[in-house]
């Protein structure tokens, strides 16, 4: 309903003795029984996503975008794009291009999986955290990550994909999660590097995305960013404690930095020059910043904090160009990045096997409580 919508509503009200039956619609609770009405979902299932790195994804196949654009009502599309350019949010009941819906599901779902799988490398050290306060903080942090996964799954569900379908795509390997979590946390110093630098990188990405166009995702991210600020601080604190500690502690944290630097450089995804990211996604405020811009922002804030502690990074080229404000660095191995995403990393199998174990062994509890006759609905907002 557009310009003439106003008149239509009034007309209906005047003609009707009873207000409610005319205007009230139970429309925002999409019934999952109708899920197939989103034709794009089948495409989604068939589409093997390429990049799960960072919380960034790139669409390698632009052909699909064009095909689907043809099918979108051009008048509605203009109205939708005008709304976004005015800075307004899109809400679940709004009309949206099928490609917008598909890309958002991919993005939010991968972000959710990253939170759930991201709890595993750090969880490795809960039993051996050095001291009671560190242990408490680490448990709290890991619990937060699982909570973030829940918030994000809910946001993705408002777009019409069920929680179960997302979990199944994670377990089958169809849907990816952030590549950094395919590496092991070998020492306590690894936990401090993850807690400090991976969380910092995630915050750069999440703050950018929280200014995007889809209301439910933005709301989830606002809550997440608030909690992440505690994660970053506790990570920084634990990192600095080692960096300011004994020679053995400093050696341990330096070793962790050396091993994690390449995965961290991978985190924001391939360089812009190689990436096929669509201008459309930027215009629709699905992708809020380019991979290189986010990587640069991260380097700008955090490299000095590392160097301040007298630690080094394993890249001789790493240096800020004061004239341009851009950081120079050696390209990380992007072939390795792709190998790890596609299952070849040191921990891919373990991560998914643990997830499968949890699903299999928790099933009897879920089934015992499940009411098969229950009509399932999507979250409202």
């Amino acid at each position: 309903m557009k310009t003439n919508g106003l008149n239509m509503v009034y007309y209906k009200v005047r003609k009707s003795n009873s207000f409610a039956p005319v205007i009230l619609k139970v429309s925002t609770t999409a019934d999952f029984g109708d899920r197939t009405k989103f034709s794009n979902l089948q495409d989604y299932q068939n589409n093997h996503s390429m990049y799960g790195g960072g919380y960034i994804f790139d669409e390698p196949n632009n052909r699909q975008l064009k095909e689907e654009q043809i099918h979108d009502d051009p008048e509605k599309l203009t109205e939708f794009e005008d709304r976004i350019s005015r800075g307004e949010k899109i809400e679940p009941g709004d009309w949206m291009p099928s490609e917008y819906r598909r890309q958002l599901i991919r993005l939010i779902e991968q972000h959710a999986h990253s939170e759930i799988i991201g709890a595993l490398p750090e969880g490795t050290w809960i039993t051996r955290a050095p001291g009671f306060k560190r242990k408490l903080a680490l448990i709290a942090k890991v619990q937060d990550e699982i909570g973030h996964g829940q918030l994000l799954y809910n946001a993705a569900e408002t777009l019409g994909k069920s929680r179960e379908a997302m979990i199944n795509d994670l377990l089958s390997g169809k849907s990816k999660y952030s590549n950094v979590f395919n590496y092991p946390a070998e020492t306590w110093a690894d936990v401090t590097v993850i807690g400090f630098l991976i969380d910092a990188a995630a915050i750069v990405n999440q703050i950018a995305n929280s200014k995007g166009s889809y209301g439910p995702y933005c709301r989830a991210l606002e809550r997440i960013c608030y909690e992440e600020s505690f994660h970053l601080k506790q990570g920084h604190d634990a990192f600095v404690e080692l960096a300011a500690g004994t020679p053995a502690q400093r050696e341990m944290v330096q070793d962790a930095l050396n091993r994690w630097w390449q995965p961290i450089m991978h985190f924001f995804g391939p360089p812009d020059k190689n990436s096929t990211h669509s201008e459309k996604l930027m215009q629709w405020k699905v992708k809020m910043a380019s991979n290189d811009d986010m990587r640069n922002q991260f380097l700008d804030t955090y490299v000095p904090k590392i160097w301040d502690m007298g630690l080094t990074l394993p890249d001789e080229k790493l240096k800020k160009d004061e004239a341009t404000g851009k950081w120079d660095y050696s390209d990380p191995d992007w072939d390795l990045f792709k190998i790890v995403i596609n299952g070849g990393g040191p921990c891919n199998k373990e991560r998914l096997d643990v997830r499968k174990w949890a699903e299999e062994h928790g099933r009897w509890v879920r089934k015992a409580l499940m009411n098969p006759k229950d009509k399932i609905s999507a979250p409202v907002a």
Partner: protein
Amino acid sequence: MNNQSLDPRVNRLKLNASGEAVTVQEGENWNVFEVFHQEKRGAHHEHVGCVHAPNAQLALIFAKEQFGRRKKCVNLWVVRSADILAFDAEDEDMFANNGEKTYRDASGFKVMEKINKFKKAAKES
């Protein structure tokens, strides 16, 4: 069986390394409940998000864990998402003229102007 993980908790599990597919059944993650959070006595309950739960009682437990574990909270409500009745997002234009109803707003009445005009006229006469 030793999984040879760095995580002692993982090593205690009997992981199925066969690579067999594990599938979650539709509906196994239960139903969706909207959550409303009251920050302090006297405040409104505000919508904060949702949880999956098999019934309202468990939804409250999960909501406490998800939305009440950190900031101040004195009470929570949950309601099945399916029971929320809402206007169609596309019908938002029906509220379009709300801002123009100055007759139902204090700013729409200029009493002092009239009083001052009356006083001025009284003084001059």
